[in-house]
């Protein structure tokens, strides 16, 4: 199904896509979002807008999407299953579409325990798999999730989902990715890759099942600012793997930030050249959006293709 998504056009034409991420602020001003959007504008095909990431209350992903669209970037609205039931999800999806959003990324969402309202309830009325189905039903069957007809103007999103090759059980991660494709996901963004060997084993299994021919996979990468960040992710973040060599390399570096960028560039080049089945890269420069243009340029991914 062709949507109005530019990201879809680029991916479907076989070009290596580049997406980045903007995290909305913990206040009501869009100045920072707009600043980052202007900075990234010519260097990425679309930008994710996180949805209250790590369960910290932030400016709404859909509202932030309006701002970055206004700055000339196509947003990928993230939607987690933690905070909305199926009524709110469908309502927000229609609202987002009416405001010009064309891409949605479906996620479970981090548990509220990690955020700034740890005593809150979580919703999980539908899970990320079912959210993909919900989007498909609205778009392809012109029905609300309940089966009631959407008489006109159904939202027609390009539907994304995530995969984490670094969580367990490892083999089942590939099967679950396939399940997401069966549910209707059209593009996949992976969790940040630090352990390249594991990612390659993951992609090998993906190719064995032919999943890469059914969905666009964008490899997630994150430039690290220093060894402490690497160590923290290695020891304290569930579902992420950072090899010890990477921690040491950052520790021994004269300029750790520069080294973090170098590592990220090496990874992207390596993935693009060597890992078959990857159709793009998703750069998650967490609270470091300004480094994205340099990375894109030095990876030979600039200028970005023009979508029609």
């Amino acid at each position, binding site marked *: 199904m062709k949507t109005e998504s530019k990201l879809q056009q680029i991916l479907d034409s076989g070009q290596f896509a580049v997406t980045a991420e903007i995290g909305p602020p913990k206040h009501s001003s869009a100045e920072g979002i707009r600043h980052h959007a202007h900075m990234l504008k010519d260097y990425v095909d679309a930008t994710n807008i996180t949805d209250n990431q790590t369960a910290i209350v932030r400016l709404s992903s859909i509202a932030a999407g309006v701002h970055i669209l206004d700055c000339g970037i196509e947003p990928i609205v993230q939607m987690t299953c933690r905070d909305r039931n199926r009524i709110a999800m469908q309502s927000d999806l229609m609202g987002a579409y009416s405001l010009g959003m064309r891409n949605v990324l479906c996620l479970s969402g981090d*548990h*509220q*325990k990690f955020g700034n309202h*740890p*005593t*809150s*309830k*979580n919703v999980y009325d539908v899970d990320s798999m079912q959210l993909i189905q919900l989007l498909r039903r609205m778009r392809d069957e012109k029905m609300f999730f309940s089966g009631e007809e959407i008489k006109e103007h159904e939202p027609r999103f390009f539907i994304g989902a995530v995969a984490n090759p670094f969580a367990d059980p490892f083999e089942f991660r590939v099967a679950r990715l396939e399940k997401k494709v069966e549910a209707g996901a059209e593009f996949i963004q992976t969790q940040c890759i630090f352990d390249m060997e594991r990612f390659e084993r993951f992609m090998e299994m993906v190719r064995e099942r032919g999943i890469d021919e059914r969905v666009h996979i964008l490899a997630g990468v994150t430039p690290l600012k220093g060894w402490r960040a690497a160590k923290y992710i290695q020891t304290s973040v569930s579902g992420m793997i950072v090899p010890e060599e990477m921690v040491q390399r950052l520790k021994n570096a004269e300029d750790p930030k520069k080294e973090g960028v170098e590592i990220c560039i090496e990874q992207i080049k390596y993935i693009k050249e060597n890992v078959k089945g990857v159709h793009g890269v998703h750069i998650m420069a967490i609270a470091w959006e300004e480094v994205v243009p340099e990375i894109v340029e030095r990876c030979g991914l600039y200028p970005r293709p023009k979508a029609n």
Partner: protein
Amino acid sequence: MIIAQQKPVKDIAEMINDCQKVLFVGCAGCVTVCLAGGEKETEVLASSLRIMRKLEEKPLETVTFTATRQCDPEYIVALDNLVDGVDAIVSLACGVGVQYLAERFKDKWVVPALDTKFIGGSTVHGVWEEKCGLCGDCVLHRTGGICPIIRCSKSILNGPCGGSQYGKCEISKDVDCAWQLIYDRMTALGKLDKLMEIQPPKDWTKSRDGGPRKAVREDVMID
């Protein structure tokens, strides 16, 4: 106590469709009291399935046993010499019992015969009602002994909402408005002023939202 109800027999039959010999395990705890999974129900279910399968010309061999409690691993040890040669175990306990059986008998297909509904009590013989939401942080001292967490359809802590009319909840004329009941009781007790305190948002970490719960009493632990 836990209130459970038996699933339709055809659903249970479907779960063990490809089995020749099945062990049916009842529980003498809550599900005996609510007439869902005691010794009697276990025998009746096993024989219903035997008859059903005989009519289908696919005879079913059954073994039955009722444990003192399935929610206590020591009482399911007795099943060790009953599971040999069975293709599946059907548990007539609440979800706790099903899981303890599955944990103990790792190579057996364990299926539930009941739907675990709620915790509550019985008003008259044959009627059970939900009374506690298992929120982990009891508020009954603030609401006149009437639970707003489970008896109010919206779990509102500062009710009633605008859907309360003639003492009933907006979802059904068969459902009492918990906040009407709370109001009436607090009025009768002369404690209406207590309802003027704005109840703060609840700490849901003590409920299921905080993840699976565990209660530990070191003072009574044996090892």
